[in-house]
């Protein structure tokens, strides 16, 4: 087989997107849906088919030249190595299931062509990020996912707050994109190339300060897409989009693009100890921040959004601790169980008659379908990190990586991560209890869910539960398949004694049980809580929006108003208008001279003649 066939993987979803966007509304609904799903499913099957190409160094394929001018040489090139292949498989697999779910979920939506077109375009852009061989192509995908995310968050744009949430996501992630673009240009200026492999190879020759600055720029770029600490405010609002979008873009794939970027450039990033520490600190703090926020949220999807932010924070911590394999391991298990949780949440909202607020749900265990309870609880167990689920192993790997890094900073971050693990268990089981336990506090509308909204959950939940097998540590008889598969890309090898691993595992288990106990004690029977100040503060995400409002938006508005009123209206408009007004006033006065009467003109003739005559006489006399 020709390696150019690798291009089919991203191009098939693109074709589906173009077809759906151009002709979607004219085709029968079934055709549109089939095109959308089959485009992604075909990409998934192709990835399986081409799996062998990723062995060793991987395979490069070039379709053609994109830019070739003045020393810039950029081509449409893919690099299908172990990292990209694993990521592609996850993205296409999860996307296929979510597309199937979306067919059921968007059953009553009239604007389905736009939805599926954007969803397919998103998959294309995401695959471009994953497979790109050079940073410019990666940046193309990076902007593409941002665009699709914007379009899909504001999918129901007739409600202003949805459109505004889309705009917010677009703008906030764009701040990160600017930093990424700066890093990209700087890298090009330093190395003269944009190929990822070449940059990674040349990174060792760069000055340490430059490397640190580059790492920080890349980190800020990653923070924008992955909703990490300074740039995290958009993710919770992004839940305004349809649930499949939340599952695909804002849980499983796009928000992990930042992690992927750092993994891709890990050889460069890892050369800067300060940069690595910054990545780990951002990750750990975000994990803690988001977990505390999730404790107080009232909307089911917002709880999950904050938990996503928190889990992505874990992945950043793993990258910072030098364990690319740990980050990817958690990325995969998280993608599976979080997508499943989101889709189950979509079913829950469906059954609760469109109700989002978990305080007004409850009792779904008895009134809803049994199957949903199992799926949701299984997803929640993974998220909480209950022993032997995928989430347990991947989270443990990260904790172990942070612990074995050795420096006091990382020990502190390990402590933060442990605290986060406790909070994670607490808010997860709070969610489960509030939704499923007790008696219904709001409308329950028990009706059979569409077939397509039920079964795509199962593969995801099974992958989430069994995700540990991907990278099972030797302690449990596994062979760390993912780490071995990644080979040289896996980052620092984590070595720990079995005793330490047992101790950490037991500690994590204890925390999960403690968190579960706390949640059961508080929410086992529903008690309406008092509306206290701390809760409100957490509900507002530590007042981050208000802070951004006060620090950025309001000064910006003030400056804009000053420019508009102070400069434009007062200075420019006043000067120009003043000159115009004076001119026209002069004209008004001069106008009076033309009376239109012959006698006036005749008199003027005479006076003019007399003056000229006088002038000549004067000249004659002199």
């Amino acid at each position, binding site marked *: 087989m020709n390696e150019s066939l690798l291009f089919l993987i991203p191009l098939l979803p693109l074709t589906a997107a173009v077809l759906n966007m151009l002709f979607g509304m004219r085709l029968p609904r079934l055709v549109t849906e089939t095109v959308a799903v089959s485009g992604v499913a075909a990409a998934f099957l192709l990835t399986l088919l081409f799996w062998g190409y990723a062995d060793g160094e991987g395979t490069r394929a070039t379709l053609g030249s994109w830019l070739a001018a003045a020393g810039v040489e950029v081509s449409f090139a893919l690099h299908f190595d172990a990292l990209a292949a694993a990521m592609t498989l996850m993205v296409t697999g999860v996307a296929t299931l979510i597309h199937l779910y979306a067919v059921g979920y968007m059953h009553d939506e009239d604007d389905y062509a736009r939805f599926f077109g954007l969803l397919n375009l998103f998959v294309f852009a995401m695959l471009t990020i994953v497979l790109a061989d050079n940073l410019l192509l990666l940046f193309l995908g990076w902007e593409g996912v941002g665009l699709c995310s914007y379009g899909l968050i504001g999918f129901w744009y007739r409600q202003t707050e949805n459109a505004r949430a889309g705009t917010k996501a677009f703008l906030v992630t764009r701040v990160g994109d600017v930093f990424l673009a700066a890093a990209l240009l700087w890298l090009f200026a330093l190395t003269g190339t944009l190929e990822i492999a070449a940059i990674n190879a040349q990174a060792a020759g760069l000055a340490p300060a430059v490397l640190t600055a580059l790492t920080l720029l890349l980190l800020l770029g990653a923070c924008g897409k992955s909703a990490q600490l300074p740039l995290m405010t958009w993710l919770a609002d992004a839940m305004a989009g349809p649930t499949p979008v939340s599952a695909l873009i804002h849980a499983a794939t796009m928000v992990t693009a930042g992690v992927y970027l750092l993994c891709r450039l890990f050889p460069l990033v890892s050369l800067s100890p300060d940069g690595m520490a910054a990545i780990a600190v951002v990750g750990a703090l975000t994990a803690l921040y988001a977990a505390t926020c999730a404790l107080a949220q009232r909307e089911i999807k917002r709880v999950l959004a904050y938990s996503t932010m928190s889990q992505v924070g874990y992945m950043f911590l793993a990258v910072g601790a030098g364990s690319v394999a740990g980050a990817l391991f958690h990325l995969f298990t998280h993608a599976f169980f979080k997508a499943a949780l989101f889709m189950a949440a979509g079913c829950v909202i469906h059954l609760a008659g469109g109700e989002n607020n978990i305080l007004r749900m409850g009792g779904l265990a008895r009134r809803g379908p049994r199957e949903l309870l199992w799926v949701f609880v299984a997803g929640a167990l993974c998220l909480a990190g209950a022993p032997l689920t995928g989430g347990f192993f991947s989270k443990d790997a990260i904790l172990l990586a942070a612990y074995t890094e050795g420096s006091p900073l990382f020990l502190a971050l390990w402590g933060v991560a442990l605290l986060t693990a406790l909070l994670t268990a607490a808010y997860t089981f709070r969610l489960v209890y509030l939704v499923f336990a007790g008696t219904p506090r709001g409308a329950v509308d028990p009706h059979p869910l569409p077939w397509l909204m039920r079964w795509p959950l199962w593969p995801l939940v099974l992958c989430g539960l069994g995700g540990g097998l991907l990278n099972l540590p030797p302690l449990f008889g596994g062979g760390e398949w993912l780490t071995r598969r990644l080979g040289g890309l896996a980052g620092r090898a984590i070595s720990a004694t079995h005793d330490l691993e047992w101790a950490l595992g037991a500690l994590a288990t204890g925390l999960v049980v403690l968190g579960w106990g706390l949640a059961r004690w508080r929410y086992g029977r529903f008690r309406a809580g008092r509306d206290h100040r701390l809760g409100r503060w957490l509900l507002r995400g530590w007042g981050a929006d208000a802070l951004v409002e006060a620090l950025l938006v309001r000064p910006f508005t003030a400056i804009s108003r000053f420019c508009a009123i102070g400069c434009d209206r007062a200075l420019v408009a006043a000067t120009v208008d003043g000159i115009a007004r004076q001119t026209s006033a002069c004209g008004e006065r*001069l106008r009076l001279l033309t009376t239109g*009467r012959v006698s006036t003109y005749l008199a003027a003739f005479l006076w003019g003649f007399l003056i000229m005559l006088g002038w000549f006489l004067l000249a004659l006399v002199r």
Partner: protein
Amino acid sequence: MIVPFAHVLLFAALLFVMGLGCALARRNLIMILIGVEIMLNAAAVALVGGSAHWRQVDGQVFVVFLMAMTSAEVAISLAMVVYLRRRRGTLEADKFDGMHG
């Protein structure tokens, strides 16, 4: 020529000023036209006087032209006076101020 040239010029100037005064002071269109005619004829007197004084025929040629032009002018302007009188019912010059600014 028995009349001294200075007298001729003086007479012409007097005639001109009277015509000018008529054209300026009167508000009736016909009177203004008469004033203009008087001024033209004053110029003609000066030309004839000059022609006799310098024994050159040019001045008299000019006067012939002047007469032709004056008759044409009177023909047109009187026609316009009749037209305006029909149209506006007045010959008051100040009433025709349609060109005022």
